[in-house]
């Protein structure tokens, strides 16, 4: 599903953000990427999204080596993954329904398909009654659920979440985590970068820890801090 083979990323400023990273996340897995700020976990996410190019090594996604993917093909790679960010990134002048429908419109879905799919995803995230609201009329948790609905609407094989609970209070954060867990239970791979220690500890999922660009730990069912450290 997602495979990193000896990947190194050096930014043009000379900073080595990722050094010789290798790991494999299988289909249907739930994996946390943890590490302090500047550890390189955002770079890992950017490499998966093909927002940044690796300097060395290979990145294989869904069986395809994307290391040398042509820029023209990048949009099609991104359609196979749903992305969720810390700051939600919703279109402020579009309603909840339109925000979600927009993602389907971009991939040229038929109007019929859109009319059927959008209400379904909205009910999955529990926002059926807020379809006509604008993002600024929603709470942070609700906005993140819209973002999740948008990420899910095209039936991606994986969800990439970059600190999705970073802007939320603990209770709302758990709402989102439960949703992600549910989505994962339906077979969608979830990769989540976070520094929310309590969430990682309680979820008991795979943890990939990165420090100064080096992968220092990969526990199948770990907490935020391993017993070894």
């Amino acid at each position, binding site marked *: 599903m997602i495979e990193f083979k000896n990947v190194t990323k050096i930014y043009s400023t000379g900073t080595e953000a990722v050094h010789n990273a290798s790991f494999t996340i299988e289909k249907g897995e739930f994996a946390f990427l943890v590490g302090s700020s500047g550890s390189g976990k955002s770079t890992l996410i950017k490499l998966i999204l093909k927002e940044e190019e690796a300097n060395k090594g290979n990145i294989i996604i869904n069986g395809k080596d994307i290391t040398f993917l042509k820029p023209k093909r990048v*949009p099609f790679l991104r*359609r196979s993954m749903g*992305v969720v960010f810390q700051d939600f*990134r919703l279109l402020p002048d579009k309603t909840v329904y*339109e925000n979600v429908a927009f993602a389907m419109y971009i991939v040229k879905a038929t*109007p019929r398909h859109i009319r059927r799919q959008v209400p379904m995803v909205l009910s999955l995230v529990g926002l059926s009654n807020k379809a006509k609201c604008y993002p600024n009329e929603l709470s942070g948790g609700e906005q993140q659920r819209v973002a999740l609905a948008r990420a899910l609407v*095209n039936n991606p094989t994986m969800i990439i979440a970059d600190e999705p609970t970073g802007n939320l209070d603990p209770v709302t954060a758990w709402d989102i985590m439960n949703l992600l867990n549910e989505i994962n239970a339906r077979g969608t791979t979830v990769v989540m970068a976070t520094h929310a220690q309590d969430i990682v500890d309680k979820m008991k999922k795979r943890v990939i820890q990165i420090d100064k660009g080096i992968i220092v730990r990969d526990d199948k069912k770990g907490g935020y801090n391993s017993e070894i450290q």
Partner: protein
Amino acid sequence: MRYNSFTYLLSEGFRNLFKNKKATMSSLVTMICAMFLFGIFFAIGENVNTIMEQVNMAQGMEVFIDIDATDEEISELGNKIRSLGGVNSATLKTKQEALDSVKDELKDFQTLLEGFEGVFPASYIVTLTDLNLSEQVKSEILQMENVDEIMSSDQTIELLIKIANGVRVAIAVIFVLLIIIAITIISNTIKLTVHARRKEISIMKYVGATNSFIRGPFIVEGIIIGIIAALITVCIVGVLYNVIIEKIESSMILQQMQVSLLQFQDLSRYILIVYAVLGIGIGIVGSSISMRKYLEV
């Protein structure tokens, strides 16, 4: 909301226009100024061309025939002249007609001509299709038999040719400059719009939108600005042109020169086409340039 490609492009394009009223106005005004200047020079150029054509027809040269030439020799010479390249027409002016025209000019003093009836030679009035060929035609005719001499207003013709060519070059240079200016301003305006919406664009990129999908509405925005500018400029140029033409035509100079200017109706067809192409072209190029940077996510 109904999502249909065409309505999506149009509605997004118009939305961009109204979201950034100031930017839209500034590029609209710039486009109109550029197109207006171009329109003026275009009108001047077209008029110079039509004056040249009329002068070509009217001016020409007068080929005087040997006074001893027989009628047959004269008509043979006429045929020879007409067969030359670049000659539009060759009209015979007989000895009698030559005398009559001199008489006309003298009016009250016609008695002076008594006894000089046989002195005025017959001639051919030769008009050319292109004044640039004047020298060549002249030397060819001079080599023919029974040709006495040729009179032509060389200096006037040369001056006219110089003016016409100068105007053409000037128009070409101005045209290129104006296009560059217009494209720069349009692309800057759209850059503002794009900058204001960079967050939206990055969201679109993360969801998997292709570059052409993102670019579409911005190009439509550029095209709309171009078309509106073209329509407004045609109206301005049209009104102004008619006012100026009326002033010039009522003055005596043109009537003395026996040339007439083009009416705006004659020009408007070309101007409309040129403006439409310019407006749309500048819109597309301008918005494509401004998008490049922001699509690299």
